Structure formats: C-alpha cells, structure tokens
C-alpha cells in the first residue's frame, strides 16, 4: 500500500490546505481551533493515557476537547494531539463511518501496538488506531514539506544526525521521523 494515496494522507493534506499551513513545524493549535477543538493539558498518569478526544456532535458544529498528557515530552504531546485530530477527522466527522463514538481514549500501549502495523492488516477498532497514527504522521510531517526540506539530499534512514535535524525542524521525535521516512521513501 502506498502511503501517498492513503486516506489519512489525503485528509491530512486537505486540512493543512484549508487552514493555510505551508511550512513546518505544524501549528496544531491553529488546526484544533479551526476544527472547534479545545486542547487541554491534563494530569494523566505518565505511563497510561497519552490523549483523549471527547466530542459532542448534537448540532452542525461539533464541540470537542482533546486532552493530552501534561507529563510527556512536547514532541510526544504533539503526536498524541495529532492522533486525536485524526480520530476526529476520520472517525467522528466522517458520517459514513459506522459505530461512531463520542469518546476516544488512547493509551501508551495501544499506540505502540498499532504503530508498526500496516493499515490493511488490521481490522475493526485497531484499524482506527492505525489510521489515526497514519493521519498524525501525515499531519505532522506532510510529504510535500518533507520533500522540500530534504531537497536533493540523499536520505539515509540510518544517518542519526540527519534524521535528528529533520525531526527538530518538524518538532517530532527522531523515531517518528525515521519511521515516516521509511514509509515514504523506501
């Protein structure tokens, strides 16, 4: 499956276009504001909940809160927030999704379980986690911006310094950047 054409990739880019974001690091606050979502730093246990999404969609405009773990590193917080935005765009706003829900709770262990799996090999609720992760990666590290940042450089996914530089530019962790590069350019 090509990452370029995945639903997550397309939806993330659409969102960036609508909000008018053209360069990294991606300002998640602006995106959340555009979607009517409030970002709330929360006192979750450090090893448990990374992020939650609570939505009330009684009327046209959904009202929602994303809570993220105050104890986590800011890069990790950004990924959690982007992941919850993914749930909101893909699984709440998307009226064709069956079994829509108002509450998403994402724990550290679910993240890692879903992270390294291909979207096609997963079903049901787990597929949602995989999709939300793919969305988060696409939103935080958009393909076009990444390509621009790389330019004519030869990308080596084992060049730690280079990856660290890129990661810093996009405000993500090195491992997240490495995984994204592997996904896009392998």
């Amino acid at each position: 499956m090509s990452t370029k054409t995945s639903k997550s990739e397309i939806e993330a880019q659409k969102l960036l276009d609508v909000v008018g974001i053209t360069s990294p690091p991606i300002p998640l606050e602006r995106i959340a504001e555009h979607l009517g979502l409030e970002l709330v730093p929360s006192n979750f246990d450090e090893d448990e909940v990374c992020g939650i999404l609570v939505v009330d969609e009684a009327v046209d405009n959904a009202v929602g809160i994303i809570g993220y773990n105050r104890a986590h590193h800011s890069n990790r917080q950004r990924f959690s927030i982007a992941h919850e935005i993914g749930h909101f765009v893909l699984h709440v706003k998307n009226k064709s999704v069956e079994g829509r829900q108002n509450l998403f709770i994402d724990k550290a262990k679910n993240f890692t379980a879903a992270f390294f799996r291909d979207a096609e090999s997963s079903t049901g609720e787990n597929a949602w986690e995989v999709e939300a992760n793919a969305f988060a990666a696409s939103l935080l590290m958009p393909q076009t911006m990444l390509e621009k940042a790389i330019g004519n450089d030869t990308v080596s996914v084992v060049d730690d310094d280079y990856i660290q530089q890129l990661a810093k530019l996009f405000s993500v962790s090195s491992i997240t950047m490495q995984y994204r590069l592997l996904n896009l350019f392998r």
Partner: protein
Amino acid sequence: MSDIYGGLLYGFVGDLVRQKRTQIGVSQEELAGKIGLARVSVVNIERGRQRPPLHVLWLIAEVLGVELRDLIPLHLQVTSEPLAVHPAYREQMNGLVEKDWSVVASMIQRVARKGKEPHVNENK
C-alpha cells in the same frame, strides 16, 4: 439536547433491550434473526453504540413481548445519571487508573456543558 445525553439515552435503551431479552431467555442471534438484523447490530444496540430507528425498536419490543415505552428510559433517568459511569463510556473507561478516570470524567462533563451553551452552536 446535548449529544452526550444522546449517547446516554441510547446506552439506557441498550441496557433495557438486554435486560428484557435475557429475562425471557432469547439470544442475541435469535432476536436479530426475527427482525432481520445481523447479530452484531443487536450487540451494538445493546452496548449503546448503534442507534436504532424507532421502527426497529418497535420490532424489538414486539419480539421481546413488551411495549415500546418499556425500552425507553425516563427523561430524568438520562439527565440525572452521572455521565462518566454510564455504559456508553464505562467499557472504555474501565481499564483506566483512578487518576485518569476522574480526568476523563470531568472532560466528558465539560464537553456536555459546552454542548448546551447555545452560542457555541450558532456561530458558524
């Protein structure tokens, strides 16, 4: 009405369906078959995750030998329930440590309150 309460309402409806169904010893499969639904739909209705249209609920009532009103909770029952412990959320909140549980509960209540502020919904 806030949709958080909508979620609660269908959670109660699901509870009532399950109660009546188990009382008369009908399986989810049997119930589904009699009204032409997949078993998974009955599972989801009972969990409050699927919102059955009125006519489906009416058919369910017929199969279970009760009146439609027996599957619908009182208004007060829905609006007075402490949000966070309701079945619609219980399943997801069960695995939480106590600290996280109370944070999540307060956020659910916060969103429910926001949903009821009219100006939030009026500006487009």
